[in-house]
């Protein structure tokens, strides 16, 4: 019964989908940790700059704010509260996460959107994987990141991941896929990704997806 309620709750609430980033998802996972990052993404002949912040009250509760800018104009900001349940066992750490969110009409409009996503991610010294399912208004999607990490033992690490993002909406369906490269140096993170359509029956989608981000956590 409990699971059925969760299912219908999740299926009936929309969510704003944004790409998963190391800052926000992986860090900060410590009490009173915080971080900022900026991302530039290019898709559909449009470039969006995201300014994002995160505060972690405790490992299981954090808050994120993401503000998009398109051609210098502020878009609709997204406030979210990722709730995570971590488990640490030997050389494995994993977490289940449920993230309610709200998209606010900071672009001057009047529309508010509520959202929810459910995700699972795990990591060992060599392997990272993330699975996320979400809905957003008329959009429903799945995002998968799987790949390897290469820590150098001196506070930095490379991640090479493969990303698959599938989305269904009123305008059609599409599946984007491509490589992701992540580099950490102590508390600084850089992430670049490039995805191409593997399946494109979406009337509103054109071309590839490019994203580059840099952030820092404390």
């Amino acid at each position: 019964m409990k699971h059925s309620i969760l299912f219908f709750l999740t299926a009936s609430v929309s969510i704003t989908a944004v790409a998963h980033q190391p800052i926000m998802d992986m860090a900060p996972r410590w009490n009173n940790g915080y971080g900022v990052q900026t991302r530039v993404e290019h898709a559909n002949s449009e470039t969006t700059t995201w300014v994002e912040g995160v505060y972690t009250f405790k490992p299981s509760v954090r808050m994120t704010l993401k503000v998009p800018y398109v051609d210098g104009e502020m878009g609709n900001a997204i406030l979210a509260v990722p709730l995570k349940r971590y488990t640490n066992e030997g050389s494995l750490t994993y977490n289940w996460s449920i993230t309610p969110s709200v998209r606010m009409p900071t672009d001057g409009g009047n529309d508010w959107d509520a959202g929810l996503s459910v995700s699972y991610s795990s990591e060992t010294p060599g392997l990272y994987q993330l699975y996320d399912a979400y809905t957003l208004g008329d959009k429903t999607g799945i995002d998968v990141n799987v790949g390897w990490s290469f820590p150098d033992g001196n506070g930095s690490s490379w991640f090479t991941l493969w990303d698959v993002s599938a989305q269904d909406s009123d305008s059609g369906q599409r599946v984007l896929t491509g490589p992701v490269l992540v580099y950490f140096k102590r508390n600084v993170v850089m992430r670049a990704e490039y995805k191409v359509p593997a399946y494109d029956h979406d009337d509103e989608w054109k071309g590839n997806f490019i994203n580059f981000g840099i952030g820092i956590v404390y």
Partner: protein
Amino acid sequence: MFIKTLAIALLYTLLVPFSFAQNNSVDSQEIATEKTHEITYEKTQNNNYIVSVHGIVCELCSYGVAKNIRKLSFIDATQADNGVKVDVENQRIFITLLDNTPLDKAALFKAIESGGYKPIEVIAGSQEEEQE
């Protein structure tokens, strides 16, 4: 439609074990607490200790743990890596204490837990001794 069905199915699949994961995590915390009381340690001549920590496998994610430990009053921040070095390959943390300062195990473990990880045990030793 296919993707939508698949997404909802994945959502449900992820939600079902969510509550179980919560229960497991509580158990893990209880186990860690029990182990904390069992651990003994002894002061070494060179003030170096090795802490085993479950789940500490990521350089970025462990930044907060190292930061928390460096704030402890008995850590010697003048040493290499400011007295704290995380070994993500083997899930260990190497720490160096100030001279004539005892190790406060409870404070150390609390710093690690507030960083999101599970401390298991602390023993005397250093990274250099491990490599020999």
